[in-house]
């Protein structure tokens, strides 16, 4: 699995990744760095996807990936500092959902993470969040600083993409 990083000039808290005419569909919400307010936004995103007839599997995958991204933003990024914020952007269309989660921390290098699936690491308690995001999303892209991540999930029920694009092989697609 690999991570694609946004080029530097699109750095932290820049504009949303898509500047096409459809960019007006982006919503932006800043919430205090805590689980409860972040989860309200998550619930809104999922409700939106449910209305647009995303599959149950898509909803499971999105919930899981957004949870992991938010947890990392609160814990690793903002280091549980209640004075910091999380910046969430999302764009939901009938065929794809993009969710950007940014924190106010110093970021990290996702390419340097150890592989938690190696036998002798199986009994280590942590380090599986990013693995799960990558496995369940169509694409997981960190910005250059590492303090923002864009999750993308296609609606598996949307005809145009049916068969063409499947979750679980994010390395095959890179778009921004």
């Amino acid at each position, binding site marked *: 699995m690999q991570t694609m990083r946004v080029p530097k000039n699109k750095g932290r808290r820049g504009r949303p990744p898509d500047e096409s005419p459809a960019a007006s569909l982006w919503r932006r919400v800043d919430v205090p760095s805590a689980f409860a307010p972040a989860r309200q936004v998550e619930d809104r995103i999922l409700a939106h996807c449910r209305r647009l007839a995303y599959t149950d599997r898509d909803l499971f995958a999105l919930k899981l990936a957004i949870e992991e991204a938010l947890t990392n933003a609160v814990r690793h990024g903002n280091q549980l500092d209640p004075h910091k914020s999380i910046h969430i952007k999302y764009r939901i269309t009938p065929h794809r959902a993009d969710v950007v989660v940014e924190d106010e921390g110093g970021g990290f290098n996702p390419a340097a993470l150890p592989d938690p699936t190696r036998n002798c690491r199986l009994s280590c308690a942590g380090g*599986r969040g990013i693995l799960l995001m990558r496995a369940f999303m169509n694409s997981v892209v960190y910005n250059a600083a590492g303090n923002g991540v864009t999750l993308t999930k296609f609606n598996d029920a949307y005809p145009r993409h049916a068969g063409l694009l499947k979750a679980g092989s994010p390395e095959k697609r890179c778009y921004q």
Partner: protein
Amino acid sequence: MPQEAAHLKVSRDGEIMLVEFTAHRILDEANIAQIDDELTALIEAEYRPKLVISFAGVDHLSSAALGTLISTNNKIRHHDGQLRLCGINPQIYEVFQITRLNNLFRIYPTVKEAKESMAPPTQAGAQ
């Protein structure tokens, strides 16, 4: 006699404790920390803990929840105990496969099979 705890429902069958979750989702760090405390208390009260954790009714979990399961497993093994998981729905089972944790945990479809996989309390003396 079932005991009620905030996040876990625990019932005993001889030496074996059956643990069920009271919520459908095991996601939140704060809840998970409490689940961890409850499991630790259960384990430490036993000489050689035998736990079956059932995921029946659970439809979401996070990597933090996996972390708690792993540290529970480590504690139980250190006390020469046994841990079995069961009742995991297909979507959540995928989480175990992706993380390869199906190679760490002993996972059974039902509570019954999980219990049967554990040794009887007496090997020769039973019946």
